[in-house]
């Protein structure tokens, strides 16, 4: 036993010595005020092709424009949210950004401990364990008007049904939601509203999978909608919704992606409704650099280029392009306002 203990002390000592010996490099100091921005990803990591990736894109753009010091910590599991946020906050970073609603409680906890550090959180707020917004004045919530993005893809779907450009032209389209919660229903509200505006005879089916992760569940909902003659399916269910895109591809009908550009997810994806997390991240950093940061909600929409759509594996006819540009401009100018609640 004794020699083993010695061996272990040896391990620790060796590790310490190696690391101490190596500790000399680095350093470097700033002269003018250099803003320090820390980004903490959720468990998806930087290469999630979605929110985390887009937040990093916004961070890099801000770095190029403002010369900030930007640092990233990827969370490998949920128990790291608090320590990772605390790491930046304890080093007096000017802004600590948490990506996604999974971090709400962690942001609530850490923002209370560091009232002089600014925090921003995508799609959420700083909350307590029971999801009550703590309304800390140092936390900025970056929300999106999902109905704006939903309206653009809804207008596209409605126009295609009206003009016989979809696969079956039964004047039936559909949406698969994850769980019936506000962000999901905002998307569907804009989608249905705009589709009806384009094609008054259209029928818009809405189903929920009650899941955000299991593609099989969304696939089932999508297949029943296809059986009810839907030929354009809008997924609003995150990872679960990949099943919608697959089901549409297998049935030879069109699908629409959500949140980020999902053109690579399935060839059936003709468009994606976008939350521009990069714009939101950039704006939040800009506010800190310019000294205009304020707590509370900041909402991103077509009007401030924070929401929109992307055309994917599909060539848009010139007429449709004209129509979409017109609607986008009207929403931008406020002459058209997509509803937040799903219309009857």
């Amino acid at each position, binding site marked *: 036993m004794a020699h*083993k203990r010695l061996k*272990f002390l040896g391990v*620790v000592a060796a590790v310490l010595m190696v690391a101490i010996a190596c500790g000399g490099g*680095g350093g470097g100091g700033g002269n003018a005020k250099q803003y320090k921005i820390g980004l903490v990803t959720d468990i998806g990591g930087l290469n999630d092709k979605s929110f985390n990736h887009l937040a990093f894109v916004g961070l890099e753009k801000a770095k190029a424009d403002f010369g900030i010091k930007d640092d990233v*910590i990827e969370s490998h599991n949920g128990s790291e949210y*608090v*320590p990772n946020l605390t790491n930046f906050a304890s080093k007096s970073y000017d802004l600590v950004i948490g990506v996604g609603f999974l971090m709400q409680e962690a942001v609530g906890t850490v923002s209370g401990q560091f009232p002089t550090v600014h925090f921003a959180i995508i799609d959420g707020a700083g909350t307590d364990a029971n999801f009550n917004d703590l309304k800390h004045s140092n936390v900025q919530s970056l929300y999106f008007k999902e109905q704006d993005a939903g309206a653009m893809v809804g207008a596209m779907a409605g126009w295609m049904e009206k003009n016989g450009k979809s696969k079956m032209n039964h004047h039936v389209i559909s949406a698969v939601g994850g769980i019936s919660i506000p962000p999901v229903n905002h998307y569907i509200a804009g989608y249905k509203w705009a589709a009806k505006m384009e094609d008054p005879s259209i029928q818009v089916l809405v189903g929920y999978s009650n899941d955000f992760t299991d593609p099989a569940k969304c696939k089932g909902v999508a297949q029943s909608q296809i059986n009810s003659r839907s030929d354009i399916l809008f997924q609003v269910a995150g990872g679960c919704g990949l099943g919608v895109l697959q089901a549409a591809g297998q049935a030879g009908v069109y699908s629409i992606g959500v949140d980020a550009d999902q053109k690579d997810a399935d060839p059936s994806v003709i468009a994606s409704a976008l939350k521009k997390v990069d714009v939101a991240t950039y704006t939040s950093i800009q506010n800190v650099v310019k000294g205009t940061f304020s707590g509370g909600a900041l909402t991103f929409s077509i009007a401030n280029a924070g929401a929109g759509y992307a055309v994917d594996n599909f060539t848009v006819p010139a007429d449709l392009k004209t129509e979409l540009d017109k609607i986008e401009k009207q929403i931008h100018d406020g002459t058209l306002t997509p509803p937040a609640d799903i219309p009857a």
Partner: protein
Amino acid sequence: MPVGSVILAFVLGAVIVAVTGGNPFAAYSGLLCGGTGLGCQGGENPALQISTTIVYVIPLITTGVAVALPFRAGLFNIGAEGQMIAGMMACTAIGVRFSSLPAPVLLPMVLVGGMAAGALWAGVAGVLKATVGAHEVVTTIMLNYVAQWLLRYLIIGGPLQVAPGTSKSLPIGAGARLATILPADNSLIIFGLPASVYRVHTGLLLALAAAALFAFLLWRTSLGYEIRAVGQSQRAARYAGVSVARTIIVTMLIAGAFSGFAGAIQIAGVDHNLSDVYFTDTTGFDAIAVALLGLGSAVGIVLAAILFGALHAGGAVMQADAGISGSLVFVLQALILFSIAANFVGQIRRLIPGLGRPAALPPELPPAAPLMTEAADPPPEPA
């Protein structure tokens, strides 16, 4: 041998960092700072880093023991993760259901409840091994999935879900919580930061007590002697009058209790509720590496847990300060484990004459591969 394995892993890790365009010195400087609070250059608070490391170390010690004990009996417990989650579920269920009870009653209830649930989880594998010969590697891995999906059910649509659309349970009652070592107070400033950021909790003492209990059980009791006897040779143990089947079952029950204890401590000390955080947790798997690196001894496990906890905490700082992905930590952990399993250091010594004697295997514990084959032997009929 473990010293060499760790050093070898760090050297290989440095090569990987250098080859991929990073600076290994900066990487290890960040890792050291994050894990131990030493040599910090990014403005980290050393006390905070030590606290964060200890929070990660606590469950690694207890689950490490839960892997090491069956190891001594020739059993490979891959199920510490599932047993820990079982302990978490029981702890939370009791802590929420009886949330109004005072701490002297409720705290022992949730801790013992967690141990019982973990013991039950591992006991299934133990009984199957002792009666029908189902290999414990297979059964404990499968039981991990059962625990993870049961957790998922409980907090998404199941009875512990706090509200529709959420993936967490209600918090456990105040009486079911382990105190933090420093007061959880945002306005009290300790070491330059609000006291509440130091999350290190009294579960540390429980984990160290568990490690001590493990050593006592193994070396100072007749049960421990039987466990070691079965691990060395089932035939010899049976000849000496030890009931191998009974020893296997009891070993797994105790191991599961240690894992369940880890889970209960984690809920009572850190999280206070069940949440989606534990869908992606790997503590129970890291525990296998901790037990191997610790050579199955209590002191070794504590030291190996400190190393792994420091690596875990250090990864974040390494990424923040040196810009090197925290995933390097997983590479290092894998290299350490790989190096031990393949006995690289011994091979290198053997190949290069004059580098000292070939590495002798530790006397009490055979290397992993023979252990697996021995464990794969069909079990004897219960006496």
